[in-house]
Structures are given as structure tokens and as C-alpha cells.
């Protein structure tokens, strides 16, 4: 009799722990975690270490990011008023150039990862949009706040903006693109992007 109760109690306890342990993170946080973990595993994979493996490593990292970032939405938001006027061909070209620019600009930082701790500080969801708050603790023991802004697209959460210490990436490029287009032209902006990206 006692044993039966004990066993039932144990099962119940295990069930509670089983549900509580993974933590109460929502979908957007989970999806960011998935991508972050994927990238970290690429970076720490011993068979991908070394400069001979750089191209392969970076290709895999880019793939992981492509799954999580909505490049078209980011391009639309960064070109802002100038997006609508573009032809479909121009839009496609811009999305490609912009994502390559970001890869070229930030890949070094990603590759420079050396064991920094990543913690998930919470999320908020509002009608198909979400913000996931992440904290990165550097070797100098400073906290860097990174906020991912996501949008629900079909059955996935995709990133459309990243803000680091309160500074938005989309806003940063939006202002620069606007200035370049006003001073010269959209064609000149594309040329500048092309030059930056194709610089070997």
C-alpha cells in the first residue's frame, strides 16, 4: 500500500520536474536558441577548426543565419521609402547585396567567439511580433544587451532587426542608405554595396 503511494508520488514529482526543468521560454526564444546553439556548435566543432576550413565554416554559419533572418523584411525596412519604387529585379539584387554586406561586416565578430556566455533574459510577444532579450557576457565581464526583433512568418519566427545596447541595426542602415540616396542615387548606393561586398 505504502509503496504504491510512494511510487505514484515519485512519478508525479518526476512529471513536474520534467515539465519545469526546460524553463518557461516561449517559441521565439526557443527559435533564437536553436540558431545560436547551431552556430556555437559550428564554431566549437574540432573538425571545422583552422584557416583551411574557414570557407566551409562560414558557409555553414551563413546557412544557419539564413534560416533565422528575414533578409527581405530587413531590406524593406532599411531602404524604407525607397523600397516600393524598386522593380522586382532590383529588390532581389538589393536583398542579396545587403545580406552579403552584413555577412561581410559581422562574420569576423561571430568567428571571434571565444567562450562568451549567452543568457536569455526574457521575451515579449504582441500580435505576431516578438522581442527576445539576450545578454552576452564578455571576457572583460561586461554585459552586452542584444534584442532580437522577430516576426511570425508562416510557422516560424524570423528576425527582422537586431539592437545591440539599444542601437538598432535597421535604423543604422536606414539612415545611411537614405543619406546616400539623397546625396547621389539608388544606383550609386548599389554600386557602393557591390564594391564593399566584392572586395576580396
Amino acid at each position, binding site marked *: 500500500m505504502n509503496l504504491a503511494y510512494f511510487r505514484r508520488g515519485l512519478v508525479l514529482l518526476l512529471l513536474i520536474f520534467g515539465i519545469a526543468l526546460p524553463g518557461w521560454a516561449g517559441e521565439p526564444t526557443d527559435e533564437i536558441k536553436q540558431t545560436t546553439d547551431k552556430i556555437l556548435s559550428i564554431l566549437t566543432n574540432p573538425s571545422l577548426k583552422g584557416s583551411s576550413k574557414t570557407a566551409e565554416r562560414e558557409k555553414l554559419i551563413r546557412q544557419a543565419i539564413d534560416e533565422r533572418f528575414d533578409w527581405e523584411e530587413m531590406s*524593406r*525596412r532599411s*531602404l*524604407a*521609402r*525607397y*523600397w*516600393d519604387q524598386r522593380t522586382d529585379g532590383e529588390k532581389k539584387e538589393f536583398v542579396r547585396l545587403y545580406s552579403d554586406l552584413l555577412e561581410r561586416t559581422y562574420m569576423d565578430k561571430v568567428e571571434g567567439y571565444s567562450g562568451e556566455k549567452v543568457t536569455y533574459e526574457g521575451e515579449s510577444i*504582441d500580435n505576431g*511580433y516578438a522581442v527576445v532579450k539576450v545578454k552576452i557576457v564578455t571576457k*572583460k*565581464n*561586461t*554585459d*552586452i544587451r542584444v534584442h532580437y*526583433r522577430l516576426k511570425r512568418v508562416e510557422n516560424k519566427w524570423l528576425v527582422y*532587426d537586431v*539592437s545591440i*545596447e*539599444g*542601437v*538598432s541595426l*535597421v*535604423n543604422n542602415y*536606414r*539612415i545611411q542608405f537614405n543619406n546616400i540616396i539623397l546625396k547621389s542615387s539608388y544606383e550609386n548606393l548599389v554600386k557602393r554595396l557591390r564594391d564593399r561586398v566584392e572586395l576580396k
Partner: protein
Amino acid sequence: MESGEVAMKKFDLELAVGLFIIAGIVCLGYLSIKLGKLEIVGERGYEIYGVFSNIGGLKVGSSVEIAGVSVGRVKSITLNNYQAHVVLNFPKGLKIQEDAIASVKTKGLVGEKYIEISPGGSENNIQPGARIRETQSAVDLEELISKFVFGKI
């Protein structure tokens, strides 16, 4: 002269002085309204709001700018769930896109705070009473500098 005439002259003088003073007060009132930027004619236009984690000293009446041009005012600021709920007032014809970004900025490096709206590219506009989703809080420059120069204990 008769006393009646004298009284009449005195009345004229007092009337003139009175009218002059009234004119002066009206001018003063007009000047203070213009300078103080009070909207006596009532709040025409529409309101939208944004939620910020830190507005760094933004005040009611602070200006809202697009491309550096003052186009609106901060109507009210309240604390809501430990965040700043800021209501902005815009003229009726001014459309703010759904993906516009509202940032708290500073005049110069240490001047007064204001809100800068960077226009977005969405075809949809933010409806009156609705929320600006994309907000950037005030960047605390000192905090940022110290973080990356000195680290943290």
C-alpha cells in the same frame, strides 16, 4: 470750461488708457502663447504612442522630429509596467508607417531630449491611437563608454 467738459475729457483719457492697457495685455498674451507654444485652438491632429524602456529625461511638450523638422509634440508620459508610455501628437495629414522607428535622441551631446522618427517602408500606416512598435530608448553614452573602456566589477 464747465465741470461736465472736464469730466468728459477725463473720461476720454481714462478710456484711452484703459483701451491701451487692454491692447497691451492682448499683445502680451499673444506673445506668451506664441513663445510658449501653447495650443489654445485645441489639439487638432492625431495621437499614437510608443513604449520605451528609458526616455532619459524626455518631457511633455518635447518636440518630435522627422528629418530634423519639428512635426509634433510629446503629449503625455506615464509609467506603465515600469516602462515609459509616451503619447505623441501629430498633424492630421502626416502619415507614420508601421515600421517607422521612434528614437529618443539628445540635442547635441548633453542637451534636451527629443524624439526622432525615422520613416519606414511599409505600405501600412499607424492608425490613430495605435502603437509605434519600433522604439529605441535613450542611449546612455557614459554607461556605454565605461562598459567598453573599463569593464565591470
